[in-house]
Each structure stands twice: as structure tokens, then as C-alpha cells.
């Protein structure tokens, strides 16, 4: 497990310390303008290799852009004397940075520890409009955790502007087709650190993060039946824990991690079942003759959204976690599947078919406020919400092969997660790795 220290730095006396809770950006607004942010060159303190500092700078710039909140002012747009400036500027001379058009300025330094294995990052964030210091922090840890430190820094910057932390220290698990098989991978929020988790040449589907981020439950055909397995993030401790004849698929964890809802085919068709997290005590929740699919636990643990074709076409339904109080949520269109709850529990994103194409939608859990997030961009499937509710990950065939995309939850700022050629599907978002 990665360990590193976090040292919030004391605000120096000459900084204006009135960083009161001002919300600059409302991500839920239908549109918003990205905050232009100036990033002066970082300084390499002492014998710190410039390549290391360059990596910090690049990861930082990339993650600020990916967040969808910021537009990084191009370095070449700086006046020459500022292009050469490195490190944290004197807070009393912030005026000279203002003509760049930036509304915020983030500057920092890197320090390589004397043992050569640890690194310290120090940054300060300024509001250029109000000419005030917003926050300054230091992060210290082994060099291999450098990207993680930058992710936490970006989370902090986002917090300063929105009063809610970002999700730059989260991961997205997804499925990658490799010939006839499908393996489960994970990547950081910025698409870096892509890692293969399963390596068994089988068909592995529907990854679901345990609420503590330590394990992934998924379906695999290893034993010639779609059974449920558990695996650690490093690919170790593969363990089959639910293997009734027929389907054991589409797991979703209860928020407390004690139970799992899933699809099972014990009666010759798919129904929604509740089991203990070790696979014990299966209990059928759905009744009737429909095909039931994709159960997803609500963030407060009280409700389960799922798909049923009991009305004649697949639609999203919500029921209480004991199977009572079933109500239909979607009425538009005749193919609405793959629900995922927003972390606040007020909206559900799903995949709906319109004119033969699959697109991503969100809808209020009261059935109002239907929004379409994708248009004219191939087939878009398997949406899932980020733990802060600001983003939705999904798969899209807009450039040919199926790839994981990330969009702001209002549909803006859609970008591919990784630089792969395709074959990706079925994303699942972790909680924050604190």
C-alpha cells in the first residue's frame, strides 16, 4: 500500500488569508465557462532532476484540463520574461501575471529528498482577479507515488473553486477484448497507469468495486458457467464465490459492503437476487415473468434500480431493497437499460435506444428531467457515475472501436479515457483512494 505524508503548509503572513468559501463554479449548471488558469514553470529545487519536475508539470496541466473546470493558458502566450520565470511568485507582484487572461495561477516547486527515493511537491494557488492567495500545500512521498500526489493537488484546487473535492485520485475499471477473451483492466482518472487485473483468457464481465476499493467482483466463464468471482486489484486472490447453475451476473455492492445484488437464472430466466457478500443466503427479489437485469444499489442502500421487460420492452424500474414498492422509472423509448445512480441518489444515468442507436441519458429518480448526453456519436453504452457526481464514464463507438469515454454529467467535455485503439467496454468507477 502506498504511503505518503501530507503537510498542509502554514499560510505566510503576507498572504491575504481570507480564503472564505466562495463557490466559483457550479458543475450542475447546463453550461459553464472553464476558468483560465496560468501555470508558470515549476522550479526544481537543489539537485532535483528537471525531468521529474517536467513530469509533475505535465501531469498537473493534463489533469486540470481533464477536470473540465479549467483551461490552461498556453505557456507560449506568456510574455518572454514570464516564460522564463520558475517557481512560486511573490504574492505582492501578482499584477504582472494578470495580462495573460488567467483568472487563477498555480505555481510550485519540487524537492528531491537526499536519499533520492522521496520527493516533495509544494504548490500555491492564487486568485488573480481578487489578487489573493487561496491555498498552499506540500505533499511528500516515494517517487513512484508522484502522480498520486499531483492528483491530490488537483483535487484540492478543484475544492477551492467548487467546495467539493475532485476525483483525480480515483480509478476506472473496464473490460478489454483480447481476441475471443475479455479481461478486466483499470486506469487512473486521467487514463494513465493502465493495469491488467484478470489474466485468464476467459470472458470476464461487469466489474464492480467493493466499497472499500480493495476488491472487484465480476462475472467470469472460467468454469463454463457465468459465475461470480472476486479479485484483488493486483490480480491476486482470484476466488469464485457464487456459482449456481445459470446466470450469476451483474453484481452491485450494498454501500456497507455486506451484501450483493445480482442477476441469477435459477428458474430458467434472469431474476434479481440478494446474497451475502460471501455468496450465502440467496433471496429472490423480483416476481413475475419478465427478464430482469442490471440491479444497482442506491447510495443510501434503500433502493435498487434494475431493468425489466415485464411491460414488453426493457425499462428501468426502482424497488426497495427487500423487493417491495416496485415502480417504473422510464417511459420514453422502448429499450432503456444499464442504470447507475448518482452519488447523491437524485438522478440515474442509463443507456437508451433511439432510432436504432444507443445513447446515454440521465433522469431524476422522480421520473422528471430526462437529459440526453450523447448525440450522433455511434453507440454509447454502460454509463456509470463518478463518486463526486460530476462525471459519467461510458463506452462509445464514435471513432470505430468501442472505447471508454468520460463526460461531465451534463454532457459537456466528452473525452476518451485511454489512448487505446478500442475493444474497451463496461466501465466501473472506484471510490476515492485516500
Amino acid at each position: 500500500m502506498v504511503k505518503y505524508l501530507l503537510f498542509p503548509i502554514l499560510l505566510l503572513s503576507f498572504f491575504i488569508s481570507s480564503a472564505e468559501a466562495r463557490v466559483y463554479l457550479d458543475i450542475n449548471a447546463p453550461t459553464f465557462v472553464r476558468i483560465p488558469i496560468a501555470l508558470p514553470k515549476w522550479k526544481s529545487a537543489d539537485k532535483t532532476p528537471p525531468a521529474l519536475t517536467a513530469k509533475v508539470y505535465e501531469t498537473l496541466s493534463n489533469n486540470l484540463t481533464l477536470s473540465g473546470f479549467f483551461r490552461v493558458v498556453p505557456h507560449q502566450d506568456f510574455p518572454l520574461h514570464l516564460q522564463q520565470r520558475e517557481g512560486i511568485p511573490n504574492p505582492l507582484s501578482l499584477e504582472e501575471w494578470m495580462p495573460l487572461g488567467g483568472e487563477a495561477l498555480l505555481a510550485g516547486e519540487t524537492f528531491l529528498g537526499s536519499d533520492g527515493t522521496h520527493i516533495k511537491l509544494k504548490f500555491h494557488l492564487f486568485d488573480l482577479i481578487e489578487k489573493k492567495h487561496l491555498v498552499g500545500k506540500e505533499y511528500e512521498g516515494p517517487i513512484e507515488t508522484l502522480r498520486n500526489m499531483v492528483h491530490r493537488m488537483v483535487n484540492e484546487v478543484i475544492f477551492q473553486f467548487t467546495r467539493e473535492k475532485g476525483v483525480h485520485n480515483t480509478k476506472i475499471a473496464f473490460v478489454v477484448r483480447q481476441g475471443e477473451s475479455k479481461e478486466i483492466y483499470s486506469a487512473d482518472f486521467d487514463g494513465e497507469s493502465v493495469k491488467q487485473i484478470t489474466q485468464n483468457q476467459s470472458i470476464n464481465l461487469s466489474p464492480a468495486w467493493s466499497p472499500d476499493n480493495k476488491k472487484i467482483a465480476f462475472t467470469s466463464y472460467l468454469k463454463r458457467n457465468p459465475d461470480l468471482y472476486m479479485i484483488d486489484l493486483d490480480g491476486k486472490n482470484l476466488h469464485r464465490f457464487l456459482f449456481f447453475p445459470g446466470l450469476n451476473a451483474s453484481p452491485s455492492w450494498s454501500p456497507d459492503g455486506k451484501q450483493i445484488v445480482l442477476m441469477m437464472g435459477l428458474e430458467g430466466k434472469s431474476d434479481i437476487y440478494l446474497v451475502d457478500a460471501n455468496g450465502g443466503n440467496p433471496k429472490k427479489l423480483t416476481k413475475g415473468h419478465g427478464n430482469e437485469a442490471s440491479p444497482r444499489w442506491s447510495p443510501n442502500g434503500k433502493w435498487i434500480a434494475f431493468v425489466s421487460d415485464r411491460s414488453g420492452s426493457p425499462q428501468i424500474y426502482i424497488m426497495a431493497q427487500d423487493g417491495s414498492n416496485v415502480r417504473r422509472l422510464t417511459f420514453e423509448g422502448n429499450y432503456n437499460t444499464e442504470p447507475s445512480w448518482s452519488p447523491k441518489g437524485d438522478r440515474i444515468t442509463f443507456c437508451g435506444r433511439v432510432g436504432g442507436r444507443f445513447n446515454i441519458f440521465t433522469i431524476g429518480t422522480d421520473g422528471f428531467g430526462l437529459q440526453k448526453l450523447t448525440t450522433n456519436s455511434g453507440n454509447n453504452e454502460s454509463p456509470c457515475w463518478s463518486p463526486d457526481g460530476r462525471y459519467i464514464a461510458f463506452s462509445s463507438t464514435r471513432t470505430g472501436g468501442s472505447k471508454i469515454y468520460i463526460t461531465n454529467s451534463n454532457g459537456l467535455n466528452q473525452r476518451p479515457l485511454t489512448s487505446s485503439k478500442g475493444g474497451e467496454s463496461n466501465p466501473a468507477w472506484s471510490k476515492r483512494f485516500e
Partner: protein
Amino acid sequence: MIKKGCPMVGKGFNILVLIFCFGLLMMGCPKKAVIKEEPSAEKSEEFAAERQRTARLEAERAERALREKELKEREEAAKREFEKSLVTKKTPGIEGEVIESSLLRDIHFDFDQYDIRPGDKEILKATATLLKKYPSIKIQIEGHCDERGTLEYNLALGERRANSVKNYLLSLGIPDDRISTISYGKERPVDPGHYEEAWAKNRRAHFIILSK
């Protein structure tokens, strides 16, 4: 399989014995008649008729024997054809070696549907006949979908397709313990194309033999 053939051979043999005895009787009788009585026109007519009948019976017997031989040959040919149709198959990442037979033909489904098409019932009847002929075989029905649907709902649809085929075979008298089902959803298309012809091929129930 051989057991099923035995009663046929036994029955045929019984008939042969009967015909043979009858023939002996027929051949014996006229001799006695010659010694004891003067041949009359009536008697010789009767004799001729009996000879004719014997000849006819013998011809019938020969024909029947021929037919039986042909049937046996056909059965053996069918058995050879079935044995020849068997191909063992191993899929990486999926446990076990299974057997496929081109005589266990796929059936296909309409988009988003799992009921068996009227035309495909004939295919399943042939499958049932084959399964009855080889009562030790255990099969697995795979339910498959085309790519135009979401992953998990397609798993449910594939489960339903496999089970509707299973139920039809049960209704034709195949015991429950000889049939298992598995849904692959849209995960294992036979045709990777993104057009109607490929989709139609992929919406299928496929049969594999788990044990002979």
C-alpha cells in the same frame, strides 16, 4: 444404440424360422400325396398354387431381408455419419473439452425475441430424435444474442433463449438431466460483422455435447 437394433434382428430371425418351417411343410406334403393318392387335376392346381405361394413368400422373405440389411446399413451409415460429425473443441479460458456436431443444428431467433420460430421446430424435432437414438449423450444449449443490445440485458435474453429451447426439447420427451443451459449474451458471435446478415446468424441457440 446397438440395443435398439437387436429386437429388429430378433424379429426378423423369428420370421425367417417360421418361413423355413412352412417351406419344409409345403415341400413334404406333396410327396405324401403322390404315394397315397392318384393325382387329380384339382390337387395339382392346389399344388401349383401352394408352390406359387411358397415362391411368393420366399421372394417376400428375401426382399425383407434385403430391406433389413439396407436398414442396418443405413443405421450404421447414420452412426458413422454422426461419429464423423463430432468435433472436439476446447475454448481457451473456458474449462473442459466439449464436442460439437453439425447434426445438432443451430436454431435462430427474431430480434429481441426468445420464442422458437415455427420453422425451427423441425430442426429441434430432428435434434430430439438424435438424442433419443443416443440416450447417453448430455448436451448444453448456448443462448446467444446479436450485438445490438446492452451487455447484461443480452445475458438475460440469452438465458431465456437457451431455456425456451430446453423446454421445447423437454416437451419432446428428452429428460431434464440430459440438458443444461448457458447464456453467452452477445459475447461470442459466430459472425463479427455489423450488419443484418451477421446479426441474424448471431441470434441463435447452439448445441454442444458435454459427454457422450
